[in-house]
């Protein structure tokens, strides 16, 4: 079974992030990491490969520094990668991104595409459904569990108060939450082996995507302005010296919560 995993490099969501002077996500800092949910997608793909055989191909769209993310997925155990890199891509909206990724998927052979449920920078959580619409295959998004026999696929779609069991035939697109597995760390051997694994880099023209359809000129939305959220006004902090619980209850009563 051949699997394509979609990974996006993002600024670390645990650290301060910002927009650049063009109001785009600032990707020039040193804090870029693999999309935190995409690690779970890679792990899910590797586990399916271990069970069913086949190849895992990583697909990413991003600037040259996204190579580091690609290397990490190869070190985890993916077999090869396709990196779409083109200066015209910066400033693309989700719709344009989906056009490019769909074109790239068209060049690869796959039975299953696995993505993160959402990227942790823009965090829209829509790319897998957009790609399903463009490639014409079924989408089973928001999975916390995947089962497949190589022909059909069953996932548990996570909901706030339970889950739905979804079934479809392959080929299909799945997206995963962080409840699905525990991603492995690359081993030293994996890191060494990754250096020899093939990474193909393609530009928009190789995919037959018109640069005018993407980037700021192709965007359907515009960011007008951005501002730091004003910090909350400092509250009252007391140290417990035997009265902490009473003080807490008094505050709650004063605010009419009791």
């Amino acid at each position: 079974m051949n699997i394509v995993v979609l990974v996006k490099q993002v600024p670390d969501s645990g650290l301060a992030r910002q927009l650049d002077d063009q109001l785009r996500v600032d990707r020039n800092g040193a804090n870029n990491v693999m999309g935190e949910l995409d690690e779970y997608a890679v792990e899910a793909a590797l586990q399916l490969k271990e069970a069913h055989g086949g190849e895992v191909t990583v697909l990413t769209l991003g600037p040259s520094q996204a190579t580091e993310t690609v290397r990490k997925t190869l070190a985890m155990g993916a077999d090869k990668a396709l990196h779409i890199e083109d200066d015209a891509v910066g400033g693309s909206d989700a719709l344009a991104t989906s056009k490019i990724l769909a074109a790239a998927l068209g060049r690869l052979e796959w039975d299953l595409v696995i993505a993160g449920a959402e990227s942790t920078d823009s965090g829209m959580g829509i790319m897998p459904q957009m790609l399903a619409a463009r490639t014409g295959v079924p989408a089973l998004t928001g999975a916390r569990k995947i089962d497949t026999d190589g022909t059909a696929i069953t996932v548990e779609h996570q909901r706030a108060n339970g889950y739905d069991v979804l079934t479809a035939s392959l080929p299909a697109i799945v997206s995963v939450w962080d409840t699905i597995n525990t991603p492995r760390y690359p081993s030293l051997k994996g890191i060494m082996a990754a250096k020899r694994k093939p990474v193909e880099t393609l530009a928009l023209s190789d995919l037959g995507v018109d640069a005018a359809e993407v980037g700021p000129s192709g965007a359907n939305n515009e960011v007008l302005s951005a501002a730091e959220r004003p910090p909350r006004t400092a509250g009252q902090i007391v140290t417990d010296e035997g009265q902490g619980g009473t003080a807490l209850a008094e505050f709650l009563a004063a605010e009419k919560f009791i």
Partner: protein
Amino acid sequence: MTDILVYVPNSSKHAAEVLTLARSLGDVAAIAFDDAAASLAGEYGAAKVHKVEAAGVDDYFVDPKATVLIDLVRQSTPGFFLLPSTDEGKALAARVAVALETGLLTDVSGLEADGTATQDAFAGATVVKSKATKGFTLATVKQGALDPAPAPGSPAVETVTANVAESDQRVRVAERVDEPAGDRPNLAEARIVVSGGRGVGSSEDFALVERVADALGGAVGASRAATDAGYYPHKFQVGQTGTTVSPQLYLAVGISGAIQHRAGMQTSRTIVAVNKDADAPIFGMADFGVVGDLFEILPQALEAIEKRK
């Protein structure tokens, strides 16, 4: 006035919020697949309801509803099409965006009549204003963006009959498993949320968090460290990859306040924290905080709460 198309999935508070926001922009035409949703639309001021009758629509995931919505948007050429920012709402919006080649704004917390949207970026650290530059405004509205305000009316109801095409029967919903909701208020909608983190230390000790929640009539939440450790079920996780809450009171105990946790609770009106580390980031956003051991503080607070009741 511009026509505002709204997808109403059910009779939740979130759906009422989207209807309330939509009403401030123009005349609302709601799309409802069942009676509960249709009657909510009437209660929250829709001028019109497209009541869809599509046998079997719930047996399949996303596709059949997407087809109905795409058709209705094509026919009614609205100024806005708004959906709740839930997994389903976003999935449907993504389908509409591709089918109509239109932009999509997700998780908006505000919208003005000229189409300017307010969105949070970076887990709420940055507030962005954005706008669709082509076509109509397609947006999903974040839970808790505003207080729902009823405006009962008697909308014109138009029945739309749709068949589920074979091409939309690809992803079958084989089973729906609802985990028992319990007696406590729904986490996403609760007025009071009491959340425990890694500091609670065990699943047994989460009973203490539950007792505080029950004394206040609130819901129980948890940080990811607590759900990952198995102290509390994952569905109660608050934060970026869990539920977003916006209660009147958020009481965080034994939670450090990581960015990903804050993403799910920072719009709470009043934030209270109990943590033994005076430098925990959660204190930086708390209206009231107690530095100390939660196993000393909570039992004492419970006693004081019971006395006051």
